[in-house]
């Protein structure tokens, strides 16, 4: 399969934080969800993908090109959706249209009016008076109206109500229909990903934890629940992190088959949510496998 985005050993250092040896790719025609807690490098990575920040080392290629030589061509083909208000305070959707029209060669007025109507956006009202949901729709309408092949979104669903979040996923589903488009978006509302993400890229503390097909996660990872007596120095090694209470333990494993073989029917095996995986991975990375409650 063709890669739309390719990162190879990307490093970026800040005084208190760094992105280390980050390598992953994003497949054409699919939706990749980018997850991780706050301050683990998601926004830094997205800014590097948009060439708003440059890596200290490593390479980033988009559509097989790099920003040093082909910045204009790449940007023409990306639709970028921010979580913050990036519009000029006083501008209306009509003003934005003129700005975008002069910036993008493939700007499509017809498509713009289609989305404005579809999203029920007032075109003559100042954008600063829009609600958070309308702002997101406006940002999306503009990104979709220049025939972008790659949509990059930073936390598009945060701060949106559940109904609008679902509408947004419908819009994205429609956008993906021809198989030529690609979406990469960061989020920490992981339930949104259940409905649309084909691939999950998970980073923690500036490092890649994994990047794989969503269903693979379900097949490899499991939450194990059982009696505390089952834990000893050997069995504990099976887990990424363990949460103990007076009433038993709960732990995450990335080797479901082996854990199932080892514990058999003495434990309960459950499908982990992405939240479970994020939580236990963070705890596991913080210090040993044990979490005492």
């Amino acid at each position, binding site marked *: 399969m063709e890669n739309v985005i390719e990162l190879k050993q990307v490093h970026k250092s800040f005084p208190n934080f760094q992105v280390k040896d980050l390598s992953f790719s994003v497949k054409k025609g699919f939706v990749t969800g980018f997850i991780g807690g706050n301050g683990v490098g998601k926004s830094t990575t997205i800014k590097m993908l948009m060439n708003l920040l440059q890596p200290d080392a490593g390479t980033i290629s988009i559509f097989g090109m790099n920003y040093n030589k082909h910045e204009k061509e790449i940007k023409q083909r990306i639709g970028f959706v921010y979580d913050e208000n990036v519009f000029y305070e006083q501008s209306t959707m009509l003003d934005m249209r003129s700005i975008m029209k002069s910036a993008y060669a493939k700007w499509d007025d017809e498509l713009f009016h289609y989305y404005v109507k579809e999203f029920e956006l007032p075109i003559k009202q100042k954008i600063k008076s829009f609600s958070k949901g309308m702002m997101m729709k406006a940002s999306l309408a503009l990104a979709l109206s220049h025939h972008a092949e790659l949509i990059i979104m930073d936390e598009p669903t945060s701060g949106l109500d559940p109904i609008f979040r679902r509408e947004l996923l419908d819009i994205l589903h429609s956008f993906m*229909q021809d198989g030529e488009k690609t979406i990469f978006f960061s989020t920490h509302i992981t339930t949104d990903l259940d*409905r649309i993400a084909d691939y999950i890229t998970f980073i923690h503390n500036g490092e890649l934890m994994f990047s794989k097909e969503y269903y693979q996660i379900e097949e490899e990872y499991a939450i194990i629940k059982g009696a505390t007596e089952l834990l000893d120095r050997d069995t504990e090694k099976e887990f990424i992190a363990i949460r103990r209470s007076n009433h038993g333990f709960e732990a995450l494993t990335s080797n479901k088959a082996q854990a199932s073989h080892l514990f058999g029917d003495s434990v309960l095996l459950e499908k982990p949510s992405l939240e479970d995986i994020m939580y236990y991975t963070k705890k596991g990375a913080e210090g040993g496998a044990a979490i005492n409650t």
Partner: protein
Amino acid sequence: MQIIISNSSNEPIYEQIYSQIKRHILTNELKSGQALPSMRQLAKELDISVITTKRAYEELERNGFIYSVVGKGSFVSEQNNEMIKERKMKVVEEQLLSAVQNSKEIGLSLNELLDLLTMLYREEL
């Protein structure tokens, strides 16, 4: 074509799709040659990811239930031996189940039932 997805089931979603489409094919509700919705269309309608429907379709194709034509989509295969066998298996299973139920009602033990079945199978009765 009706497909009902449970999000709380332990069965992976692609398997739920796989087994439901398979059932539609085995019960002849989906006839051979009939077109299936595209993977992307089905993903949108079921509100799930494309890779999930892709996986279900690949599995259906691998087991000979459907075939794909590049640029045209996926279609239900001609009935092959495997499918006929599977359909018969299902009927046998149902008939055995009702034999088991009847046996239980009259207190026939598993061994007695097995004896009876063995005799019938070997045509000794």
